[in-house]
């Protein structure tokens, strides 16, 4: 029993650290984005709040927390309240299946460096990302704002379209790793990362995942040029902050999953595994920011067309090809 309590404390500490680090990194991802975008745009970005503007995220968070929280007339208060929570919750939970290192041993017990090693890890990710649609759609609908509604609907349509190609693009990975468990998938990449075997799946996944995290060129649900702020038009203060947080956690999760599935997860020479994972996440995030700084935005129907007429057929064909090749060479 004592051991259980000790283990529980270790677990709590571990999970708190994980959560803390994820939140901290998500906060600083905002800073990274602002600085990196600035440099791409030949300027400096935030540099007054602390050295190099390092305290910028703190300023933003404190400001948002102490800001008035408004609810528009005619809004569905319950849904309006929980929508940002859904987005943030699902994004954070998705991170729980990302392994960030080999097991370590404490008190003679193996402490796995993953929050949860579900044998259906990948499916859990899909489930969570499907759930986060509710945040967007409900938030947009519950605000009683037309712009919000249009954004919410765009978000829902976009997510259900890309959910499919996202899922199908990963089937070849599962075929190669024989498992849905993220830990097993990392194991399976002991020698080579999957990106070498599955470049097509990688591409489909990157595009679909960017669409899922609503980033340019797929940021239609919040396209400010068209829909003001889309589904979060009516959100203020920390409720808006949670949407914001959710978006950046999503980027990290996306980076983490991409790293696990295609880039060998925490594997890498010389440096400790966690560092490798963070480096990979960081690079993926930079890539997304870079893309954001470059590309225009697709239109609603073009986005759907890309999903249904290009990515889904491509993903299906990729499965067939992978299967055939696997059977011929794998034996």
């Amino acid at each position, binding site marked *: 029993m004592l051991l259980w309590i000790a283990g529980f404390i270790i677990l709590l500490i571990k999970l708190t650290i994980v959560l803390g680090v994820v939140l901290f990194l998500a906060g600083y991802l905002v800073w990274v984005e602002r600085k990196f975008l600035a440099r791409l745009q030949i*300027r400096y*970005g935030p540099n007054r709040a602390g050295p190099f503007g390092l305290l910028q995220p703190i*300023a933003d968070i*404190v400001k948002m927390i*102490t800001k008035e929280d408004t609810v528009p007339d005619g809004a569905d208060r319950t849904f309006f309240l929980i929508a940002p929570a859904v987005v943030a919750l699902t994004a954070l939970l998705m991170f729980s299946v990302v392994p960030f290192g080999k097991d370590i041993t404490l008190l003679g017990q193996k402490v796995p460096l993953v929050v949860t090693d579900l044998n259906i890890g990948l499916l859990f990710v899909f489930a969570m990302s499907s759930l986060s649609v509710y945040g967007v759609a409900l938030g947009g609908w519950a605000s009683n704002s037309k712009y919000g509604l249009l954004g919410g609907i765009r978000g829902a349509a976009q997510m259900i379209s890309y959910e499919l190609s996202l899922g199908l693009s990963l089937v070849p990975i599962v075929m190669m790793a024989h498992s849905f468990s993220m830990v097993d998938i990392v194991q399976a990449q002991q020698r080579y990362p999957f990106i070498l075997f599955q470049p097509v799946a990688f591409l489909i996944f990157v595009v679909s995942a960017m669409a899922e995290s609503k980033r340019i060129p797929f940021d*239609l649900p919040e396209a400010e040029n068209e829909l*003001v702020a889309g589904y979060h038009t009516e959100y203020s203060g920390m409720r808006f902050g949670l949407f914001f947080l959710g978006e950046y956690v999503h980027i990290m999760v996306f980076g983490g999953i991409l790293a696990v599935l295609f880039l060998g997860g925490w594997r890498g020479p010389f440096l400790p595994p966690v560092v490798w994972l963070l480096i990979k996440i960081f690079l993926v995030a930079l890539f997304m920011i870079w893309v954001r700084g470059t590309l*225009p*935005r697709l239109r609603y129907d073009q986005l759907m067309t890309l999903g249904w007429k290009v990515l889904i057929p491509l993903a299906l064909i990729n499965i067939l090809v992978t299967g055939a090749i696997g059977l011929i060479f794998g034996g």
Partner: protein
Amino acid sequence: MERDRQASRFLSIADRVINWSRKYSLWPMFFGLSCCFVEEAATFTSRYDMARFGAEVMRPSPRQADLLIVSGTVFKKIAPVVLRLYEQMPEPKWVISMGSCANSGGMFDVYSVVQGVDQIIPVDVYVPGCPPRPEALLEGLVILQEKIMSTEKPSRKVFHLGGGTQGTDRPVLEIGATKSRDPRGPGYEGIPIRGTSILPGGLHWGNRSDLMWTPPARRIELSEADLALAAEMRERFGDKARLEPHSSDMLTFEVDRGSVKDVLRFLKNESKPKYKRLDDLTAIDESARRNRIWNKGLAEASSDAGAVESFSRRQPGRYPDFTVVYQLLSFDTAGRVRIKSGLEAEGGAGLPASVTDIWPSANWYEREVFDMFGIRFEGHPNLRRILMPEWWEGHPLRKDYPGRATEMAPYTLEDARKRQPMDAMEVAALDHKVPPGEREFFLNIGPHHVSTHGLLRCIAALDGETIKSLDLEIGYHHRATEKLGERQSWHQYIPYTDRNDYLAGSSLEFSYVTAVETLADIHIPERAQAVRVLLAELYRLSNHLVWMATFAHDVGAMTPNFYTFAEREMILDIIELITGGRLHAEFLRIGGLAADLPEGWKEAVDNLTAIFPRRLLEYEKLLRENPIFLARTKGIGRISLEEAMDWGVSGPNLRACGLAWDLRKKLPYSGYENYDFEVPTETAGDCYARYLVRVEEMRQSIRIIEQVVRNMPSGRHVTEDYRYAIPERREMLKDIETLIHHFVNVTRGMKIPVGEAYGATEVPRGEHGYYVVSDGLGSAYRMRVRGPGFANIQTLPIMATGESIADLISIIGSMDVILPDIDR
């Protein structure tokens, strides 16, 4: 006791933490009213980089914004919207009033403008300037940051403890009590302001100085073709259409009201050449003409009313109550014709007939005439106000209408609450007769919206995201620039012309001075002509760079904005070196320029022409062949050449439909015939074609600039005809005869001869013209501004109906609209 002290220590620490955070996290709302917003936007770009202060997160929704930068003129029609947006911001919130207009009404002491935003919302910091340069806005931001840090105690409010301060705590100013109504500052109330706004100068019983100072207006020789047309007109319409014997600019006919429609139809469809485009349709209130007042005086003096009636009819120069003016343009052989038709206020034979069935574009023009003069048109489908709000009383361009805002009842907070813009469904019902019961999904896009490029209100009836019908509501940016032209002296009006298109700067002065110089027959030294061309082309580049940035931004690409503004800053630096201004050059003068070119101008321009083409290629890499950009622009927002001509579209938007129509080539002015350049065209008429045309125009502008620099003539920068010009400063300071001219022209203003003239130049957005009517006084009798935007934007519903919201945004972006030349 100890607990209290601890609590207060905690609160003071909390104060500091919260204030510090807020100081560095002032997120401004994406909100702009007019010119100042362009400088505000520049403040966000790389050279000034407001992001350094943590204030770059521009929020399009008021819910997430902390800071409202009121950048520009607060119009009475938009004031309720400004107030609502401010009130929709959550606490705490701050306000920076940017620029003279927002501070006090600035140069727009005129009926449609609120004299300072502080009359409806509280203001923390006022930034002076017109517009304030980006650094000035940054200074304003720093002052606001200091104010937050040093004076606010927010924690008591944040923890609901009662007391404490946060956000704006200043009251809304009350006019007369806490705020002066006089432009000169407090203490002047009751002392008359120079230049009354109702009648020009009162009764003038012929003025000896008229002839001494002012020779008659210019007269043109009619060409063979013009004479042939006049002959044909005489044959067809006999006495009903009379050729005006003297004209300063173009063939002019006076036509009886009943025949106007026939004449116009003839000119459009049958005459040779065919006058395909309705350039402009406007009116003149003739009631305050000097010799008309004189005649009236005679009539009152005489007892025999009938005799006076016949006498005054025969009197040359007897004016009707109103004149309706139509101006047509022929594309085949470049040329214009003007049709004038008199109108009596009372007892006349019916209303003028609407010409909307000849030119669809007449719809808005006739509404404008109705709005401004109260003239009704028979058979107009939807004659209602267009620029002024529905609740407005009176017709502002009538001569008996007071022009100054300070002469009217002040606009207060109550007005801003009461005077709401019309409901979207109501507008749609009026415009295309939707039965009011029909619950379509109406969405207001604008007047405050990121992508409407100003205060344009699009009312879309949606089916999903498809636009079933689109109505436009304009007038949110109506600065009464035509009324101001009747009040300000000819010279004083120059700064106002810049503001008629704040991205094209002196291109607009160019149109204006061309008109006045045509009328008064002033000859411009070659050097001044070349500098005018140089400035016009520099501003064209600068305008197209902003257009490229905003267009890219509209389709979602954020970075071109930052790059193109870097080069734009280079151009503005040159403009500032030469003229002293950035957005508003205020450098062209009637008769020449304000000053000669300064030292170092050549190096600066050479530097630009060396770098620019390479950079342009670089920016094009982000857009031209980008598949997403192509998908968003190709085939979107198409308009056919036939439609474009019918609707009066001009500029790059017309050239993108396949017609190489450019005033610089077709009706050259200021020596454009000496420069070697091409007029780029495309045929598709879609967003992408408009993109290609504008980009190519930038290359051509560089070519022209290079030629100007190479061949810059020497000589004077201002005409020697000091009757009409502010003399050269060097001479004025040392020479008494020159000083006399200087005194007269600066105070009373130059007197431009009686007559009328239209002067237009090819500004970046198309044909921008001024139709100036002079009664021989120091200011215009009627100042008509023909903005290209007014005609161009009318085609938006045609282009956007059936497309989606996203397409509407890229169409607006590709059209390069700017509100002051639409609403004027």
